[in-house]
């Protein structure tokens, strides 16, 4: 203790001469920092209602509620997060995990209200004064709580695959599949979008858990063609995947394939309950494609006697006769079909209805008849010269290729079309050319420009890798014929294909003309159904809807005994055909058991 200890405390008096440091009311003049985690903001247009914010909130402060004036659509549940500030702890994990970056926080932190319920509101829907605040917490670009990239899947190198029809992709390894399955946030937007409403989040969870048997069980609940869909599904689910908004969508299709790859084929039957006892009712199905066989599968499991008539000598429909082997090996189709057959389905291939057996006979011999004919006829451009025998249709050539027939592989070929069928025939021709001549000389001309291309990006990429030349925005004008032989295709540049409203309205630049040399021109544009088997009387009797057989919600035509499903009523798509097969089977079952109202 010293004199200093007595005097020193008096130095505190200097504070008398200091200005106060406190901030006066109102505090509004003191904005929160740029990163401040204040009241939430949400961009309702960007938000897809995936509910991941609700999932991560450990306080249960977020509820997904219907947003007024919004209807659910593909990829948007129309739900929006409502936040209860009696629970919120301002941790911003909801912002960090938001799959679209729609959710953020303002730097506003002062809010006084006498009504406690006011502190529970839906940001972006209930307008608040901080909605336009620029400052506040937004997820930094690098900060990810959900991985954004797919693991790399092994596949054949272009030079390897072009020499044969071997399947290109390897499928995921267990490790890769688990990493990919890990990226799913289980929002379920995919379920609503999948035509067959497959239980995608749960079968992905089964992969994470390594429970493949359960995964296969889930697949079979909604789809007897998981082997096929695991390879060639149009995966609409992936286009709405929440992960796709700020990263790559989850590879749902490859994950489905991974499940079927992992379960030994002998065990497939074990996950399926045996068919119900026989009902004594019989159903005939015309067409052994995905729609017809799905209907057959369901009906057989319900105890009905099902006979499937297939015109060609092997089942599978367009999946076999349209899709090349390098995308979908034929034994894969057999695996799916054999499980269906094992349910007691009587599958008769090589039996074309309209020949020895007529539709009338089927009607007389069965309680119901399902038409699942598919889209097996190619459309023609009808440009000058297109009636030449060496102007072929892609679907015909693909069918011949599957059958192993020699259709005279051209040394150089031109394909008209920009969809997946065009890519299929181009790459098939490329392989045949490689085998026959050692070089690939295929040119694809598409009306659409690359920004509006119909084919999958993967198909385009792989076609390029295999040496196929793809020219976009080329409108076919005439097939060039020299000395009676096809010499090539004349095209004009398409200046624009769609108008401002997005409607097809091609305008050509006639000065930009090209001749694409080739001794064969292949038309790979639209497809249609051959409905000749109906005959004129039945055609006249049936109700039609813009060129397609008119069916009700259950798939029944205007003739009570006749049902229709698949591409011929829905347009070309494997998984839509599967969904339609289920639909028509449920309708028939209800009709046959007198429970129509409940169907």
């Amino acid at each position, binding site marked *: 203790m010293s004199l200093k200890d*007595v005097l020193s405390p008096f130095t505190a008096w200097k504070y008398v001469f200091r200005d106060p440091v406190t901030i006066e009311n109102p505090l509004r003049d003191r904005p929160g920092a740029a990163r401040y985690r204040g009241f939430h903001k949400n961009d309702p247009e960007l938000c897809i209602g995936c509910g*991941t914010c609700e999932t*991560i909130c450990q306080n249960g402060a977020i509820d997904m509620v219907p947003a007024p004036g919004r209807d659910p659509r593909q990829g948007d549940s129309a739900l929006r997060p409502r936040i209860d500030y009696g629970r919120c702890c301002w941790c911003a994990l909801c912002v960090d995990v938001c799959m679209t970056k729609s959710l953020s926080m303002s730097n506003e932190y002062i809010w006084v209200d006498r009504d406690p319920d006011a502190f529970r509101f839906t940001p972006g829907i209930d307008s608040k004064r901080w909605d336009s605040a620029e400052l506040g917490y937004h997820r930094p670009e690098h900060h990810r709580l959900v991985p954004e990239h797919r693991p790399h899947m092994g596949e054949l190198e272009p030079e390897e695959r072009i020499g044969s029809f071997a399947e290109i992709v390897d499928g995921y390894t267990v490790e890769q599949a688990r990493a990919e399955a890990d990226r799913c946030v289980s929002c379920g937007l995919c379920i609503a979008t999948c035509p067959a409403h497959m239980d995608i989040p749960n079968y992905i969870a089964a992969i994470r858990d390594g429970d493949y048997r359960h995964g296969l069980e889930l697949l079979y609940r909604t789809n007897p063609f998981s082997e096929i869909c695991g390879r060639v599904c149009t995966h609409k689910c992936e286009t709405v995947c929440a992960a796709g908004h700020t990263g790559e969508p989850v590879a749902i299709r490859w994950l489905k394939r991974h499940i079927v790859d992992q379960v030994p084929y002998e065990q497939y039957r074990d996950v399926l309950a045996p068919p119900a006892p026989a009902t004594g009712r019989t159903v005939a199905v015309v067409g052994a494609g995905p729609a017809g066989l799905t209907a057959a599968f369901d009906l057989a499991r319900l105890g009905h006697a099902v006979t499937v008539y297939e015109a060609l000598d092997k089942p599978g429909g367009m999946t076999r006769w349209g899709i090349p082997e390098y995308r979908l090996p034929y034994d894969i189709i057999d695996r799916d079909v054999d499980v269906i057959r094992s349910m007691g389905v009587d599958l008769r291939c090589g039996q074309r209805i309209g020949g020895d057996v007529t539709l009338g006979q089927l009607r007389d011999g069965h309680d119901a008849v399902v038409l699942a004919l598919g889209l097996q006829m190619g459309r023609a451009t009808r440009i000058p010269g297109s009636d030449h025998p060496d102007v072929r249709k892609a679907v015909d050539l693909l069918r011949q290729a599957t059958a192993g027939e020699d259709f005279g592989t051209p040394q150089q070929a031109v394909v008209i079309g920009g969809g997946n069928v065009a890519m299929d025939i181009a790459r098939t021709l490329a392989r045949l050319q490689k085998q026959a001549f050692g070089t690939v000389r295929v040119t694809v001309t598409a009306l659409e420009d690359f920004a509006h291309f119909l084919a999958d990006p993967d198909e385009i990429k792989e076609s390029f890798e295999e040496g196929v030349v793809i020219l976009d925005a080329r409108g076919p004008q005439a097939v060039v014929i020299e000395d009676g032989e096809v010499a090539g295709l004349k095209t004009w540049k398409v200046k624009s294909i769609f108008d401002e409203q997005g409607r097809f309205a091609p305008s050509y630049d006639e000065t930009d003309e090209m001749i694409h040399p080739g001794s064969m021109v292949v038309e790979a544009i639209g497809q249609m159904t051959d409905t000749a088997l109906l005959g004129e009387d039945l055609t006249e009797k049936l109700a039609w809807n813009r060129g397609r057989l008119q069916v009700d919600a259950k798939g029944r035509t205007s003739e009570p005994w006749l049902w229709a499903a698949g591409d011929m009523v829905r347009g070309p798509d494997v998984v839509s055909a599967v969904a339609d097969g289920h639909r028509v089977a449920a309708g028939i079952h209800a009709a046959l058991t007198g429970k129509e109202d409940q169907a």
Partner: protein
Amino acid sequence: MALYTPDRSQYPAALPDGSLEFDLASGKYLKLWQGPQHPGITGNMSLELTVCGDEIVHARTHVGYLHRGFEKLMERRTFIQCFPIVCRICVPEPDFNEYCYAQAVEELAGIEAPERARWIRTLILEMGRINSYMMYLGGQAGSLGQAVIGQWTTYGRDLMLDRFEELTGARIYHMFILPGGVRDGLPDGFETRMEETLREIERIMADVEDVMFHNAVFKTRTVGQGIIRPEWIEDYGVTGPNARAAGVVKDVRKDQPYLVYPELDFEPVSGTDSDVFTRADVRRRDVHVSIDLVRQILARMPKDGPLMAKVPNVLHWKIPKGETYVRGECSRGEYGYYLVTDGSGYPRRVNVRGPSYTHAMALLEKMIVGVNIADVAGLMVSLHTYPPEIER
């Protein structure tokens, strides 16, 4: 300085089991509750004092008023969902919870936070230490009737909270250090504003030294008061400034270095007298060490580079079976997280070692006997106790 020796003649007789016999009906003893609502208690705990005259003859510490069951809550939360919870286990210095939890998860999950994140974590922990001491100094002075110190240090702490706000987005519960790294880098111009803040805090600390430490009243009340004997350090698990003021130089930053401390230049502060005054002085000097560390970190940390390690999808993050104990030197001593995982998406057990647990219960009960009622608050504050970390 001689140790204070109370008059033991008034003490009650000991029963055979060692407990004391109080005959309250005699009028000689009085039960006096200090807390749970009392200006002389830190946080929500309570002291059940038995007094004889002005002197404490027996004390029981009571905790539980603040029990929110965090450890149990965490067993029902995914690993990422525990992240917003942990900071609440210690309100005035929450960052150690964030760091220890994140580090424990990272160890068991086999990931490593990037270099830049490790520097930012160290920065945040030192910023938090300064703040914690500022709060303590106000409390220590206030408990002895000197309210002005708290006004000054609260101002300094507020400036540091401004820095926390611009760096982390929040003033109190920063929620910035999460498994995998940190949320973001330093905002533009942060270093300059931090230097201004550090200078203002240094100015405040000079005033605090003049008015609080060179103060006859403060010294009279604190010198020789509340001795922690060196042999108690190991017996009671005393750590941090409480141990260092007794001459036992324990500092996790040096003893089991973590984050970037091995690359920083500092010496732990210690004392010899182990009384209230020495403990306060150790903390005062420790503020300057932390200020220096903040400067070192800002000068030497990498300016760019990743801030987060690649983490799996946090929504279904499962961590292999394992257990680990992660410790750090917080302003009150050793802070630790013991984390047990069982391969599921939830922690099997989280146990938090808050240094207040060892300091504020058994040790306080022992130290308080023989103390004048008026000195209880000062003594208790000198142990730098934060009850929320006792009640996890």
